[in-house]
Structure formats: structure tokens, C-alpha cells
């Protein structure tokens, strides 16, 4: 499966690039990612939440990089969900903002895990990538993921719509959300 999406962030390219290049930032805005840990200058270990309490993990390496302009990576070894991606940072015509163009490719494997993962990732994958980039923009432009009373948990995959009623959270709901 191949997905592309783009957004424009009203920040300098160097700043936008630096935030992405610190791969440990990715889970703050990507719905499925739980953790990305740098294991070397160009290598990292990724953990994504998957159904049935089972996490999907893989190692990845940066295969191509032009500072301030482009990062390309791919999973290595025996990844549950082999994947690769490229993000390009392009100055926007306004002279202030940076266009962020993302392309992702991943193989949904066979078997029970594959099916579950495909279902989990695949409901509206393009929408999910768009939403990820929207949160990326929020974090860079406003400092955090924006929460409403109806969608109080920020980046919780598959729980954004339908939302809960737009009314203040009870203490129990607040505690539950904090664990997400």
C-alpha cells in the first residue's frame, strides 16, 4: 500500500526538519505509533499499537538524508509490517512556511497478525495520515496537540469520530485519558 499526503507548516524548514529528524517526536502526532527510540545515528526501533493488546515492532534505518530537505527510511530485519517512507521539506511560496510532503509504503503481511493489522491500519489510512500531519502542524505551530471536550485524548486512533459529547470530562474520564 502506498500513501501520500502533504501539509504546510508556518515555520522555517530547518525547524520543521529538525523536529521530524528527532524520530522520538513522531509518536506525539502519529496516531498508531507508541514509541520510536533512536538506537544509533541512522537506526531506530519503532513500536506501534495494534489490536488485541499486541504491539507491532520493527527496526528502521535512514537510507537517504539531505539535512533540511529530505529524510528517507525503511524497516530492516524481520519487520511484522515491512514499511518505508520519505518526507520532503520544501520552502512554501510565502517565504515563511514549509511544505511537508510524505510518502509511505507498507506491506500488509498474511496470517492472523497481518489481517488484524490491516484492519487496524486500513480503515481509512489516507485520512489517518492526513490527521497525523494535521497534528504535526498543530504541535509545531501551537506547541501541542489541540484537544476539545468532544475529542479530549488528542491522538487516539479510531476514537476521534464519533466523539464523546462536547461537555467537560468527569474525573474518571480524565484519568482514563491521561493513560492514553
Amino acid at each position, binding site marked *: 500500500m502506498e500513501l501520500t499526503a502533504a501539509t*504546510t507548516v*508556518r515555520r522555517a524548514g530547518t525547524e520543521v526538519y529538525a523536529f521530524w529528524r528527532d524520530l522520538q517526536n513522531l509518536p506525539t502526532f502519529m496516531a498508531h505509533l507508541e514509541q520510536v527510540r533512536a538506537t544509533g545515528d541512522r537506526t531506530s526501533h519503532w513500536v506501534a499499537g495494534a489490536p488485541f493488546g499486541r504491539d507491532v515492532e520493527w527496526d528502521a534505518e535512514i537510507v537517504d538524508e539531505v539535512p533540511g530537505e529530505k529524510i528517507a527510511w525503511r524497516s530492516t530485519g524481520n519487520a511484522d509490517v515491512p514499511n518505508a517512507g520519505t518526507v520532503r521539506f520544501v520552502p512554501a511560496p*510565502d517565504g515563511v*512556511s514549509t511544505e511537508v510532503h510524505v510518502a509511505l509504503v507498507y506491506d500488509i503481511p498474511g496470517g492472523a497478525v497481518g489481517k488484524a493489522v490491516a484492519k487496524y491500519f486500513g480503515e481509512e489510512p489516507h*485520512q489517518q495520515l*492526513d*490527521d497525523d500531519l*494535521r497534528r504535526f*502542524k*498543530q504541535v509545531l*505551530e*501551537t*506547541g*501541542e496537540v*489541540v*484537544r*476539545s*471536550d*468532544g*475529542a*479530549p485524548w*488528542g491522538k487516539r486512533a479510531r476514537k*476521534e*469520530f*464519533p*466523539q*464523546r*459529547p*462536547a*461537555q*467537560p*470530562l*468527569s*474525573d474518571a474520564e*480524565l484519568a482514563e485519558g491521561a493513560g492514553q
Partner: protein
Amino acid sequence: MRANTWAGRNKVEVRDLPDPKILNKRDAIVGITSTAICGSDLHLVDGYVPTMQDGDVMGHEFMGEVIEVGSGVPADTLRVGDRVVVPFPIACGACAACAAELYSCCENSNPNAGIAEKMFGHPVAGIFGYSHLTGGFAGGQAQYARVPFADVGPLKIESDLTDEQVLFLSDILPTGYMGAEMCDIRPSDVVAVWGAGPVGQFAMDSARVLGAAKVIAIDREPYRLRMAEQAGHIPVNFDDVDVRLRLLELTGGRGPDRCIDAVGMEATHGSAHIAAYDRIKQAVRSETERPHALRQAIMSCRSGGVVSVIGVYGGFLDKFPAGAWMNRSLTLRTGQCHVQRYMKPLLRRIERGEIDPTRIITHRLPLDEAPHGYDIFKNKQDNCEKIVLKP
């Protein structure tokens, strides 16, 4: 806290809910001293705006006192104890739309942007108490409200102006003003305003303040037209006269130079088959709007004039008079109000006595009587023009 909530189509209910809490660093919690029922709340209650949920707190016009601020709100912007009016569009102040002062198009404030994008092509800003399409933010018809981006939106009131003098800076006064401003009024202009509800009244006053030669109010409710007349505008009752003919008469055959649609998607009209057609299409949800006022404004406007739309539309309409629009060089301008842009200048106009926002208030009710308020406002009973609720 007590809060007025959506409880299904044509039903609101005041309930006990938890108090709001800080969810983002730039939030503030406001203890509400005055709030109002807006004409667009009626669209939500009628069920014409999708994505309402049972329990959604209503209301987007409110003011009060800051009782808590998040750690990301700089102390030089807002502090506990400040008295503030809160603008209805939630705007981050940092995106390209905010930088262009297009606050109601903020690119960051709607956590449900994906749905709005499907409906509108591009998302719009979050709005308090205004469906999940605009983010699912709890509204202000309540004792307390959470206000995101509190360092950007709320206007501090540091003088002794009363709540009623400044409350409408949250929405209807800037909305009416923007409707007039979009008309680029010149001193010789005759401005016609469809709808003598609260927003229409403020559009008329604003047109006058911006120098219009003559302002015409079009409505069917005698009490609303009287209110407009008392403020110096010329009333036209569409139940009694043919609007287009009357407008031609009042303008020496030219038609109004500038026309403002302050009605929106639930326009009523006594006659015309097309009204029935709209009502049927709306009922079966194949058209979400009854654009009667908009059509009439376009057909009546003088060639080369401006039609400014501040009435709320939510979805799709048909029988749009594109031929009149195109062939007669009309300019169509519109937008949800970019309230943040207008609050300070309009506050100054209130201080100088150029606009008296209190003139439209007909009812003051305790919050617990909100359902009664919706009832009389919706059904235009008891000469109801504008209701202020006291939590």
C-alpha cells in the same frame, strides 16, 4: 456545574455536569457571568447542522471572569481575575489563516478537521458549542467554560462597561459589522439588510456607522421592523409588499447598492413556490439550505453591487441565481466572522457611544430557563429579539 445541553432534535435541557478542566497548556477556565442565545443556535437545535450529540453544551456567546489559566498562557496576556469577552471562533494565532486575520478559518483549532474537510473541502476553525463538525467544544451556556488559546482570543474589559454593553462583542456585533464592512460602503450607498434579527440589526447599525446614505430592513415580524425603524432604518415587511418592487421604489429604480443576507439557511417566505420546493428538499435532506433571502438579495441588488452573506449556511443549496450573479457583475462576499479582528475597534466604538449593543435585548433569564428562552426565541413569541442568560 449547570449547563444548557442539546438533548435531541428541538430539545435543550439544563443539566448538572462536571466542571471544565484545563486540557491544553494554553487553556483558561472562565466563570461565566453573562451568555446569550444566538440565532444560529436554533439551526443546531432544529437539527439542520449535522454531528450534534446528546449532552453537547450549547452556546458560543459568553463572557465572564478568568478563574484558572494553563501553564502555557503568558501572564502578560491573561491572568486569573481578568474580566473577558470570549470570541466564538477558536483561533491559534499561529497558522497562516490566523496570520492573515482569518480567524474563523484557523487551521489548528478544530480537532475534528477531517469531518469538516469532507463537508467543506477544507476545514474551518473550532467553535464553542457548535457541533462536532466544528470540533466538539463545550459551549458557554453554562456556569463555566474551558477556553483554548486563551492568550489569543479573549478580550479583556478593563473599564466599567456593563456585561450587556460588551457581551455581543463575542459574535453578533462583529458579525453584523463584518457584513457591512464586506460591502465597501460609499457615502451614496443604499444598503438593504435581509433579516432584522440581532445580527441584521447590528449590520444595519454598522452600515450607518460606515456611512451609508440609507439603510433598509427586510423582515416579516412587525416588532423586529419597529426595532429597526426606531434605530433610524427603513422597514420593509415582505408579508405586505413585493420586496423587489419596494426596493426599486426606495432606490429610484436602481436597486440597493449593497445587500446583506443576515438570514441564512432557514429563511422563511410567505409566498413563492420555490419556498415550498426548498422546504421539501430540505425535509428529505437533498438540500440543506433554504436560500430564499440570498436569492432575493442577488436578484434585487443593483448591477455591479455587492451581496454580503453573514447568515449561516451549513451545506448545499440549489437554484442559486448564477446567471444574475455573473451577468450583472455582482460581487459575493461572505465568511463566518473573524471576531478577534474586530473586538478592540468595536469596543472603542461602544465606548464612544457610536453603537449601542444593548438596544436589541428584550429578555433576561436565569440559565435554568434556557429551554423557555429557546422556545420564545424560535417561535418569535413575546416580541423576543435577543435573550441574555445569567448563569
